[in-house]
């Protein structure tokens, strides 16, 4: 299944930094995205444009993951040659990635296995 079916997203910019939030539609969806959407996922998808580090921040009680992509906007909106210099379309591209649809029971088992 596509990430789009369980989460929504918005991207923004600060200078040469792109920021993409991923917001789960519910708690089960948050468990799925927090275990599956990692900084590596972001690198796999946008590696061609990221020239710096990628950070992930979590706001679990709101079901939000916030990704920060450094040096990812061709030096930033004021001088970038990109058609979408803000990287506003990144959020929609991210929502296309596949997510494995574990059942809640599977997830709990997986999470306890991971933490154990």
């Amino acid at each position, binding site marked *: 299944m596509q990430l789009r079916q369980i989460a*929504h997203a918005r991207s923004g910019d600060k*200078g040469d930094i792109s920021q993409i939030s991923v917001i789960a539609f519910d708690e089960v969806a948050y468990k799925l995205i927090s275990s599956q959407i990692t900084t590596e996922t972001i690198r796999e998808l946008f590696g061609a444009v990221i020239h710096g580090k990628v950070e992930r921040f979590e*706001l679990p009680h709101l079901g939000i993951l916030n990704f920060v992509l450094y040096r990812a906007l061709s030096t*930033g909106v*004021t001088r970038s*040659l*990109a058609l979408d210099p803000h990287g506003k*379309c*990144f959020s929609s*591209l991210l929502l296309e990635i596949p997510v494995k649809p574990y059942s809640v029971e599977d997830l709990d088992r997986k999470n306890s296995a991971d933490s154990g």
Partner: protein
Amino acid sequence: MRPIRIGAGAGYSGDRIEPAVELVEDGGLDYLVFECLAERTIALAQKAKLHDGKAGFDPLLTERMMAVLPGCVKRGIRIITNMGAANPVEAAREVARTARKLGFAGLRVAAVTGDNVIDVLDPASELLERPGTVASLGNRIVSANAYLGIDGIVDALNMDAQVIVTGRISDPALFVAPLVHGFGWRRDDWAMLGQATVIGHLLECAGQVTGGYFADPGFKDVPDLARLGFPIAEVSADGCAVLTKVPQSGGRLTVATCKEQLVYEILDPAAYVQPDVIADFTHVRLAEIEKDRIAVSGGSGHARPERLKVSVGYRDSFVGEGQISYAGSGALARARLALDIVAERLKLTGVAMAESRFELIGVNAVDVRNDTVTSHEPREVRARVVARTDTMQDAVRIGNEVETLYTNGPAGGGGVTKSAKEVVAVVSTLIPRASVAPHVHIEVA
């Protein structure tokens, strides 16, 4: 103490005007805030001011004031805006002129200045986005504006200004200032200033929290976007807020729309650095109390930073661009041929390019990943050539080479557009707080 009601009348310089008028008429507001100053807008405004000392403020200032001043004066709604851009004093004079024209002689209009730090910027100050110092930009600097906090606006409110026009001020501060003024919060009450920053951040992009920039048909539907209502925050003295909008206006205000806006353009949610506070969004709570009414609480904060961010605008380069469309069978092949021809022509005619892009809109211009293979032939595709040059002449030649495809390129090319411009780019640096002092200037209409 009754709640304070603040409306967001604009989320950017070119925003719609009708939703602000609707807020004035039906929003029961105490304050109307217009956030109209993007990072690069002020650099461009400074450039305009270099040509004409009376220019450099928001191009829609007069139109917006004509639309909202009558209602605001009638209802006692005070207006706070950064539409002063590079020239708040001239903007305040323009607001006063507009007020006189509307018959509101005596109206007090404040200009908050002090953000222009071009004369006190330390040449040795390091740039934030890349290696180098302010000095490395040489004589290309056109502007340097520090992000001011709430102080100038609070002073202006204390001086009974009905309209307050600023230059570069942190966006949330436009909303935090009237709350600090109204509730008398201490300037070192970091938790309260942090919560107020959350409220300001949710409001600052106006329609983006009421369902604008949210709709995704079939997944996230939003009603009546053509009549999108802009947000209102009802803020209590304890800092808790309810976000809402005018009943019957378009759009939706939900926990989901607030979540998208809460982290929009935020890096570390635990440390959103502002001039007045380092806000902490970690424990923010959002709850729907009824349709289109969302309670916001739990924002917090830490002591304000000792240095302020400065946007430095500088003449960077020139950019030339040209586009042409192809459609029907073989559109992709003809568009690719068009790009190849332009690339070869630019080489043949000796156009020096520091950086360039040859793209097919509809195939690989926005989807920046390396995967440019399409599974199906697009019905139409637009070839785009854009390049950075050292001179305006070379920039103009980029678009011209695309245009000559009309009579010299592949079959069926249509709809050429071209442009060439000087780029005023922005980089950031920091300045000690002590080097920056806001000043309030009052104009009486």
